[in-house]
């Protein structure tokens, strides 16, 4: 009895506020746009009884999804989100791995402090961290002032409102998600394995590629997924740092909903984004599962 009550409360909450909203999105993605409140048809009308439900079913169709395939804005936005997410994940790995490596090889008494320094930005506002780059990257910003002051460039570089700024923003904000799993993999690495490799004639660098990298593989995979998955649906970074040419699907969805008030198309965009995300999410879960089993 008590057990049933314990299960029902969180279960019911998640059903009502997570699963049901989702089914509503699915349903509206199959509806048609209308100039009404709410701005779509059909709406489920129980007053006509069974006939009402039948009419409702009959009026649902895949029109919005067909629309998404015909207007090239959408598939370009999906492709460009995927491209940006893949490149940004790779860049985050390039920046994050040496930091994680340095942390794992730092003296023991430094490590708690280094850990805290990595986690601290995670607790500060995401919006502010993205915003902090606007002043640095703008045409009259600090970076251009510095480079021009040193005489490296004579004309200011245009970085803000380009994809470069989006990459910088993503690497900056998601870096802790990459560092932490790699650090925890490297920290557990048995140093005697490296000594053995060097004794057997490996150079430092070969030992790194043949021993350290394979043994931190799970950390790398986890970090990449933790960066890739949220980046794909990112909205704040492309809106603040990207330009009008930066196409990302999170931004398209937002504009479709708030600016065009086209709820059915916004819902269809959301459904496809989810379908794309399911694959990396399942792969990520499987990697975590394997990790847990390996840890015993």
């Amino acid at each position, binding site marked *: 009895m008590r057990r049933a009550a314990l299960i029902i409360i969180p279960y019911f909450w998640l059903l009502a506020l997570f699963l049901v*909203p989702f089914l509503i999105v699915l349903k509206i993605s199959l509806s048609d746009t209308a100039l009404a409140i709410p701005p779509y048809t059909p709406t489920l009308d129980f007053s006509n009884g069974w006939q009402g439900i039948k009419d409702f079913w009959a009026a649902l169709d895949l029109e919005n999804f067909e629309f998404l395939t015909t207007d090239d804005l959408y598939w370009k936005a999906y492709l460009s989100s995927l491209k940006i997410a893949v490149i940004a994940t790779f860049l985050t790995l390039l920046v994050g791995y040496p930091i994680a490596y340095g942390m794992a090889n730092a003296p023991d008494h430094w490590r708690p402090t280094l850990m805290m320094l990595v986690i601290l930005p995670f607790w500060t506002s995401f919006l502010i961290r993205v*915003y902090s780059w606007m002043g640095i990257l703008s045409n009259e910003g600090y970076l251009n002032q510095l480079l021009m002051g040193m005489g490296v460039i004579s004309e200011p570089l245009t970085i803000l409102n380009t994809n470069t700024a989006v990459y910088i923003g993503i690497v900056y904000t998601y*870096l802790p998600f990459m560092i932490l799993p790699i650090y925890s993999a490297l920290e557990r690495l048995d*140093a005697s394995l490296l000594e053995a490799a060097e004794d057997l004639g490996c150079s430092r660098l070969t030992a790194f590629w043949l021993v350290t990298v394979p043994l931190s593989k799970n950390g790398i995979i986890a970090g990449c997924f933790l960066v890739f998955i949220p980046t794909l649906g990112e*909205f704040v970074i492309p809106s603040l740092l990207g330009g009008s040419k930066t196409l990302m699907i999170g931004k398209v969805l937002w504009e479709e909903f708030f600016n065009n008030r086209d709820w059915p198309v916004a819902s269809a965009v959301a459904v496809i984004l989810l379908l794309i995300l399911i694959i990396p999410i399942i792969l990520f879960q499987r990697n975590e599962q394997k990790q847990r089993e390996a840890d015993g």
Partner: protein
Amino acid sequence: MRRLTWFNTTALTLGFAFLYLPMIILIIYSFNESKLVTVWAGFSTKWYGELLGNEAFLSAAWVTLKVAVFSSTLATILGTLGALVLVRAGRFPGRTLFSGMIYAPLVMPEVITGLSLLLLFIGIGLDRGVFTIVLAHTTFSMCFVSVVVSSRLVSFDRSLEEAALDLGCSPMEAFRLVTLPIIAPAVISGWLLAFTLSLDDLVIASFTAGPSATTLPMKIWSSVRLGVSPEINALSTLMIGIVAIGVISASLITKRAALRQEAEERAAVQA
């Protein structure tokens, strides 16, 4: 092999410079006299004064604080229950669905969560405002609390609870006197996480807020879209300062607690 080679030192220095320089620049320029944020014109705290005199920011901050306190508290209760269900309830019909619903919101793009909740609120005719933001924030942050608390529950030694039951505790008493104190650190960090997530959230709040309520991130958003502003720099500095003080003092407290426990254990062994 624990040594600081030149490579490690460089990696750490450059890495942490990259992580912290943007925020340090932001803090320095929040004390800039000039309205033009990229030109230094002398030290001044006038933007802090303007900020504190700005009614719109203050009321948005108040709304954000209310939402964060209510949603994180609710999320901690529901999330702890969720963790107990995940770890303790054993098999029951729909268990897979339940764990799916706990883990899915963690990776769900915010735009989708926001859109779906908004469509629900409109569908059931709920007026949007502070209440709907609280519902939305509770839903996604309870999942984070569940994950944090369940990782603690998994490593929890159940024989302690069984001992309490054998010694005559009711199950409720055993939970309150034995289980809860042991999982308390995880519950507290879950609450802090939920609180921060709520303070931080822009996207979900924008979808679920409606015209009557504006949170601080929404206010910051509408202002930074127009470009860099000295008032936002001042606000950012205040927020970074509060978080830094909070995180550093929390870590000092846990460190001291760990040292005290160690000392007590040593004393117990000697006695």
